[in-house]
C-alpha cells in the first residue's frame, strides 16, 4: 500500500516537473519581439548572427528545440552560460550545496526558537508577554526580509563590525578539502546573519502554531492532574503539554523546507550568498537566460522533492491520508 502510494506520488512529481519544464521553455520564448535579440548582439552582421543561432540550435523549428531541450534537461544538461562561458552544469554544484546549507540552518533555528517561543507565549498566556510576543512575529512577517537583512547589516556588520557583510567565506581563505570548506568557524561566521534574518521571518508560523495547540490542551484533565501531582510548571509545559501539541508543528515543518528553498532568493541576494536564488537574480539581470532557466528548474525540483517528503511524513503520521 505504502509503496504504491509512494510510486504514485513520484509519478505525479515527474509529471509536474515535465509541465514546469514546458512552461519554462515557453516562458523564455515569450519575450516580445525577437527572442534571439537577447542572445545575440543586434549589431552583429547577419552572417555571424545566423552562425551563432545555428550553433545554439535556435534556427530549428520550435517543436524540435523543445524535444532537444527536454532530452537534455533530463540528462542534467542545461546548455551553455553566456556569462561564465562554460556549461551551466559546471557552475551549479557549489550553489546547490550553499542554498541547501542556508535552508537547513534556517530550518533548525526556525523550529528551535519557534517552538521555544510558542511555549513561552502559551505559558504566559493573557499577560503582556503574550500580547507583545504575539505581535513580534507579525511585524517580522510584514517586514520584507531584505529590509530586516539590511538593518542587521547596518548594525552588526557596518557599525559594530562583528560579522561580514557578504559572501560565504573570507577572501583568501583556502580550504584544503570539501569538509573543511563547510565545517569551519569562518563559514559559520558568514552563515549566522543570513540564517538569523530568515529565521526571524519564518519563526512566527511555528510559534503561533505551538501556542494555539498548547492553549487547546490546557483544559485537558491530564494537565490538571500533572499540576495536582505537584510538578513544576516548566515540567508540565515541556514534558506534557508541548508533547501533545507537536503534531501540527511537525507537519508544518515538513512543508517548510520546500517553502524555505523557494523563498531563499531575497535573503541570498541581500547577503551575497552564492546560492541558486541569488544566481537566478544575477542571471536575469545579466540576461544569461540558460542559467536563469536551469536555476529555476532546479529550485522547482527541490521544492517538489521537499513537498514529496512532506507528504510522506504526513502520510506516516496520519494514515488516513494514504487511503485517499
Amino acid at each position, binding site marked *: 500500500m505504502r509503496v504504491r502510494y509512494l510510486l504514485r506520488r513520484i509519478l505525479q512529481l515527474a509529471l509536474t516537473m515535465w509541465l514546469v519544464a514546458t512552461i519554462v521553455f515557453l516562458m523564455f520564448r515569450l519575450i516580445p519581439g525577437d527572442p534571439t535579440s537577447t542572445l545575440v548582439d543586434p549589431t552583429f552582421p547577419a552572417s555571424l548572427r545566423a552562425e551563432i543561432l545555428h550553433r545554439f540550435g535556435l534556427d530549428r523549428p520550435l517543436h524540435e528545440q523543445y524535444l532537444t531541450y527536454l532530452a537534455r534537461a533530463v540528462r542534467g544538461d542545461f546548455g551553455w552560460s553566456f556569462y561564465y562561458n562554460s556549461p551551466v552544469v559546471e557552475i551549479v554544484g557549489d550553489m546547490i550545496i550553499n542554498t541547501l546549507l542556508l535552508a537547513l540552518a534556517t530550518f533548525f533555528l526556525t523550529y528551535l526558537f519557534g517552538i521555544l517561543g510558542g511555549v513561552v507565549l502559551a505559558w504566559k498566556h493573557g499577560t503582556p508577554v503574550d500580547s507583545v510576543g504575539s505581535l513580534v512575529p507579525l511585524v517580522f512577517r510584514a517586514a520584507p526580509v531584505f529590509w530586516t537583512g539590511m538593518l542587521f547589516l*547596518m548594525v552588526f556588520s557596518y557599525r559594530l563590525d562583528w560579522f561580514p557583510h557578504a559572501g560565504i567565506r573570507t577572501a583568501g581563505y583556502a580550504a584544503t578539502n570539501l569538509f573543511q570548506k563547510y565545517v569551519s568557524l569562518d563559514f559559520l561566521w558568514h552563515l549566522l546573519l543570513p540564517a538569523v534574518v530568515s529565521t526571524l521571518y519564518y519563526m512566527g508560523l511555528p510559534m503561533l502554531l505551538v501556542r494555539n495547540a498548547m492553549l487547546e490542551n490546557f483544559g485537558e484533565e491530564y494537565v490538571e492532574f500533572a499540576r495536582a501531582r505537584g510538578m513544576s510548571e516548566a515540567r508540565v509545559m515541556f514534558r506534557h503539554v508541548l508533547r501533545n501539541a507537536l503534531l501540527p508543528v511537525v507537519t508544518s515543518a515538513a512543508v517548510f523546507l520546500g517553502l524555505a528553498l523557494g523563498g531563499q532568493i531575497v535573503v541570498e541576494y541581500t547577503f551575497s550568498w552564492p546560492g541558486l536564488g541569488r544566481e537566478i537574480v544575477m542571471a536575469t539581470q545579466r540576461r544569461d537566460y540558460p542559467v536563469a532557466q536551469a536555476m529555476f528548474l532546479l529550485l522547482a525540483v527541490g521544492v517538489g522533492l521537499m513537498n514529496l517528503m512532506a507528504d510522506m511524513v504526513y502520510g506516516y503520521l496520519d494514515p488516513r491520508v494514504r487511503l485517499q
Partner: protein
Amino acid sequence: MSRNLSEGLTLAAATGPSWRTRLGILRRILFRDLSTAVGITVIVLFVLVALLAPVLMTDDPWAINRRPNGTIARLDPPSRAHWLGTTDLGRDIYSQVVVGSRAALLVGFLAALMTTVVGTSVAVIAGYFGGWVDDLLMRVVDFAYAVPFVPFVIILVSLLKPSLANVIIAIALLYWRSSARVIRAQVLSLRERPYIKAARVAGAGPWRIIYHHITPNILPLAMLYMAIGVGWAIITESSVSFLGLGDPLVISWGSMLNLAFTTGAMQRAWWWVLPPGFSIILLVVATFLVGRSVEEYANPRLRGEV
C-alpha cells in the same frame, strides 16, 4: 400576520443568510475591536497620502537638489529643507516615500483583486460542478503550487518588460492558487446544504444558485484571501523592485531600498533605509490586522457564536 412571519422565517432558513445580514455582521466585526480599527485607519491614511501625494510632497521626487553653496546635496541627513534627508543624487527622500505609496497600493489592491476573483471563480466552478471539471481545475492548482513563486515573478517580469502592470500580472498568474484550494473545500460543503438542494429541486439553474446562494456564503473567505493578498502583493512588489527588476520609471519603496543597497549608501544613510521599510511594515501589518478580523467573521468558531 403570524403566517406571513413564519413563511418569512422558513424562507430565510431556506436561502441561508442574505447578503444584507452578512454585510451587517461584517460591519459589526470590523469596527468592534481596536486592532481592526487601527488597521483600517492606517490603510485609509495611506490611501489619502497616495491620493494627495502632489500636495504632500515638498519636492519633485526626481529633482537633484543642491545645497546653499551650490554643491549637490548628496546623502544629506534629515534637515528642515529635506525632512527625511536626501539620496546619493540629492533627491528628497520624504517626497519619494510619499509618492511610493502609490505603487504599493496600486499593486497591492489590483493584484489582490485579480487573484481573489480568479481564485474564487475557479473554486466555485470546480466545487459546484465537480466531476472532471473539478479534477481538471484542481490539477491546475497542484501544478501552480509546484512553481516557485518569487523566481517565477522576477523571471516573467524581466522577460516581459519591467513595469508595474507586469508585476501585477505575474503575481496574479500564480497567487490565486491558495484561495482556490481553500474556497473550493468550502463550496463542497455548501453544495450539500439543504437550502441549496431545495433551490435545485425548485428548478434554479446552476448559475443562479452560484450567484444567489453560494457566492454570498463564501464572500467572507474570499475577503480574507483578498486582505492577505494585499499584504503579500505589496511585499512581492517591493522584493522585485529591490532585486533591481522593477519598473525603472516608477519610484516604489522597494526601488528606493534597491538604490540604498546597491550604491552602498546604506552603510551610513539610515534615513534612506528606515522610512521605506517602516512604510511597508505599517501598511502590511494593517492589512494583516484587517485580515484577522475578517477571518473571525469567516470562521464563526473564532467569534464564539457557534
